């Protein structure tokens, strides 16, 4: 069993390395074709090492990549946290009550397709502060997937479970805590996972607009304006790694809260 497991791990590592190798090859080819306009993997690696040398440097004129990453993550965390705090209960109410669904659903359907970036100037007008405006933007874009999934979960509570609640005279609180929320939880987590994915995509764009400390700002100011394309690539790699890590966390949560029925 143990051997089998390690054989499995080895093969997946090998496949991973093969993927990296192919990707690197294509990258090197593109670097050659663009005559160095896009830096090749090895020179990007040099820049990467340089960038992560002092990750948590936090001087007023010079900030490390770690500091920027944390500041981006902080904004995402606040926006995502606040958004979820609103989205989960509203979603559950929508899913449980036909009236609430009919009142709220049209608004959700209209607001959902709006690009998160469109909310940025509105946030700026409200808060007069660009970092706060990006938090506001994250907040808005985190609402919809969570809300819709929570509503879907709540509206699909099986009749069997409702019958148990009726037969034994569950109080409203018991119904919420023992039936509605546990049943909806896997759906809510799916919503949260979608939300954090969108938030992570949107924060980079938001920070490009807003400036201040953050990964988006790093891409724009140091990469593009600084004329250092390698830094853009480094940022892309870091953003990708962190994003997939966040997704992994929620996948793990999802597995933890799925019940064998």
């Amino acid at each position: 069993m143990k051997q089998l497991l390690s054989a499995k791990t080895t093969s997946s590592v090998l496949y991973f390395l093969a993927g990296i190798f192919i990707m690197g090859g294509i990258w090197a080819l593109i670097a050659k074709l663009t005559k160095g306009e896009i830096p090749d993997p090895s020179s990007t690696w040099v820049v990467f090492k340089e960038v992560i040398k002092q990750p948590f440097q936090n001087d007023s004129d010079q900030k490390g990549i770690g500091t920027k990453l944390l500041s981006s993550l902080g904004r995402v965390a606040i926006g995502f946290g606040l958004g979820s705090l609103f989205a989960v209960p509203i979603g559950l109410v929508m899913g449980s009550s036909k009236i609430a669904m009919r009142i709220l659903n049209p608004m959700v359907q209209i607001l959902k397709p709006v690009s998160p970036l469109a909310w940025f100037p509105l946030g700026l007008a409200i808060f007069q502060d660009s970092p706060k405006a990006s938090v506001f933007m994250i907040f808005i874009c985190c609402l919809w997937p969570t809300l819709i999934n929570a509503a879907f979960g709540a509206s699909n509570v099986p009749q069997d479970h409702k019958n148990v609640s009726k037969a034994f005279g569950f109080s409203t609180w018991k119904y919420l805590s023992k039936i509605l929320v546990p049943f909806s939880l896997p759906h809510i987590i799916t919503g949260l996972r979608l939300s954090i994915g969108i938030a992570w995509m949107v924060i980079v764009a938001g920070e490009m607009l807003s400036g201040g400390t953050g990964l988006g700002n790093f891409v724009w100011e140091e990469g593009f304006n600084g004329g250092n394309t390698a830094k853009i690539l480094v940022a892309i790699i870091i953003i990708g790694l962190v994003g997939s890590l966040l997704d992994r966390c929620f996948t793990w949560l999802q597995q933890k809260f799925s019940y064998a029925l």
Partner: protein
Amino acid sequence: MSTSTTFEESTTEVTDRILSQVTQPEISIRVDNVTVSFKTPKGIYTAVKDIDLTVNKGEIVALIGHSGCGKSTLMGTISGMVKPSAGQVYANDKKVEAPGPDRGIVFQNYSLLPWLTVYKNIEVAVQSALKDLSSAEWNKLVEANLRMVNLWEHKDKLPGQLSGGMKQRVAIARAFAINPKILLLDEPFGALDALTKSAMHVELLKLWNLDNREKTIVMVTHDIEEAIFLADKVVVMNNGPAATIREIVEVPLKRPRNKKDIVHDPKYMEIHDRLLGLLIDKFSIDDER
């Protein structure tokens, strides 16, 4: 002279009343001219029509009929899950308006909450149905009922980790834990294999005996053997829509009943044939062309 006659009359009246109280059993459930109709997109669908049924205290009654004959609907009117369109149902001398803790229900598909352990599944029911008890009393009830169905060692498992028979025992323990006067079983053993089913029948009667045969049990089934083994009365329903009671067959077999012996009892065979005749029109395929 006249005084003595009135005295005599009054004594006979009193003895009559006392006698009638002893001999006339207490009524547990009274279904009074009940009709249930549902609104469907295709119009009004009447599931059961003009049902009259009286169940005495401590009786076991089986409702039997073909699928879709409205036996579950009829049971629903007793549990309070289904509102009759006409007529009333009285349970424990009270008109049934909604489900209540005086009627324990065991559902067709167990209906355990999959995210709660066996223990918690019963605990949450006990807490809700018997709000006035202390938490020590709740714990005692849960433990006693889980031990009764021999599942105490499995108390920390989730329903998903249990076999069908075990799940059904948890569901039965949950219904018994709230100590209802009436127990309603909706095709309780339908999903179990024949061997487990047989064991569960004995188990159910054991629990009923432990309780001095005071609980009234109404069960929906489509299994003739099950109905005869368990019940005092078998209520045979006509096919729906607008199903009515076709006949009520008494099962005067002595208790305790023995699974092995009972099938050789001529009375058993007679009842079995009678029920078969009521439920099945054709006993073999036609040979003629």
